[in-house]
């Protein structure tokens, strides 16, 4: 018995004082994904990568907004969304204090983005920010002015209209020359 007391004296108290003192998690700990709305472009890469569909990207009922929604209750903290996000809008934080009482909707994070309508058929197909981001990327990627003008037109078209427009330019003999 006395030997046991000696051993415990030697090693001291190891219990974490956690709720009364902050606890520092280990390096590269995967906590709650932190969402920065200003950086989100609504590309839905995170929604496709998410294995448990905790992130969903959908149009709302009247298709005026693209809604990005994250349910922390279903998240399995794999970090795929962090891996695929092109702008760093979603990054795993070190937050681990996630418990909620009674109301599960406190676990939800959502953002509403403006919808881009197709210039030809007026159908909603993407977020305005995504179109803007794509153009910004292209304008810094060393492409010629003429190509950039064409891209400006094509970026605001839905995939179906883009296909028809491309076929129309090719068949009417106005093929673009790649410089």
């Amino acid at each position, binding site marked *: 018995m006395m030997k046991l007391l000696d051993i415990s004296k030697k090693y001291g108290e190891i219990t974490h004082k956690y709720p009364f003192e902050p606890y520092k998690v280990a390096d590269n700990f995967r906590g709650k994904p932190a969402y920065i709305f200003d950086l989100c472009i609504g590309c839905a890469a995170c929604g496709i990568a998410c294995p448990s*569909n905790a992130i969903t990207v959908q149009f709302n009922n009247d298709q005026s907004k693209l809604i990005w929604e994250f349910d922390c209750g279903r998240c399995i903290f794999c970090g795929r969304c962090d891996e695929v996000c092109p702008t760093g809008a979603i990054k795993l934080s070190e937050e*681990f204090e996630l418990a909620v009482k009674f109301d599960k909707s406190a676990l939800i994070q959502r953002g509403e983005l403006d919808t881009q309508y197709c210039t030809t058929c007026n159908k909603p197909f993407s977020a305005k*920010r995504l179109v803007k981001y794509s153009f910004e990327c292209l304008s810094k990627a060393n492409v010629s002015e003429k190509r950039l003008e064409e891209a400006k037109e094509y970026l605001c078209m839905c995939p179906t209209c883009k296909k028809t427009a491309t076929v129309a330019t090719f068949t009417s003999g106005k093929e673009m020359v790649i410089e």
Partner: protein
Amino acid sequence: MKTYEIPQEIQDANTLEQKLDLLKNIGRSFSVFRIDCGSCNGCEIEIFAAITPLWDPERFGFKLVANPRHADILLCTGPVTRQMYYPLLRAYEATPDPKIVVALGACGVTGGIFYDAYSVLSGIDKIIPVDAYIPGCPPHPASIIYGLTTALGVMEQKLQKVSFEHDGDMPPLVEDSVLGNTLFERDLLVHAKRLMSYVFGRKLFDKYISALVKSGNTKDAKATKISITEAMQIEDDPRYAECMGILHNEIYTHYVMCEEEDKIDLHRVIWGAK
């Protein structure tokens, strides 16, 4: 789908006032009964990590018991498989009133990754009323301690629903390229992620770009070779050093005219690893 009608006498004995009254005037330890409703055992491992002396929840009076008849708190894990549906109900009805139900882990809260599987009911709250939710896959022992103390009212809930409804202007997201062509940065980042995964790949990308900028003229293959080799020599981690060399040889040489001698020799003796 409504699966289980809670009997009226259980509902009457489990109002919020009665639960708060129990928590306030308990006068003894809280007995926790753990139900595994088809969980993968990850949550169980974390629960047992949380009851070790390292975390010691008996500071707050939590004690695991082996019988639901002795329990005040039910700690439910797992997405509720069909086989565990009736055992869960039996444990729920056997617990003395008022009972506090805590759903633990992503599966317990919403069904987690199994939420649309055919054999699960996805979530404890689809069957019985839940008082506290602890998400995590599995939750860290500190999260479990936090969740249980939140359920008791010792600590405050930190998360609230966040909703951004106004689509404002976004800041310029694309930085200017060091070579005047953002495709270089794109290829570099993709290859860095392929070599060292996304967390360390981004660090590698930053290290490589800063070494490249340090050379003065980024389009001069001779100057950049000297600058990257220097960065490799002062790098403590040999994995970063070698991957910086690979990036230089495989990506940089595509974008800037290079001769064979401008490539970095990756033999460790030649570039002088520590």
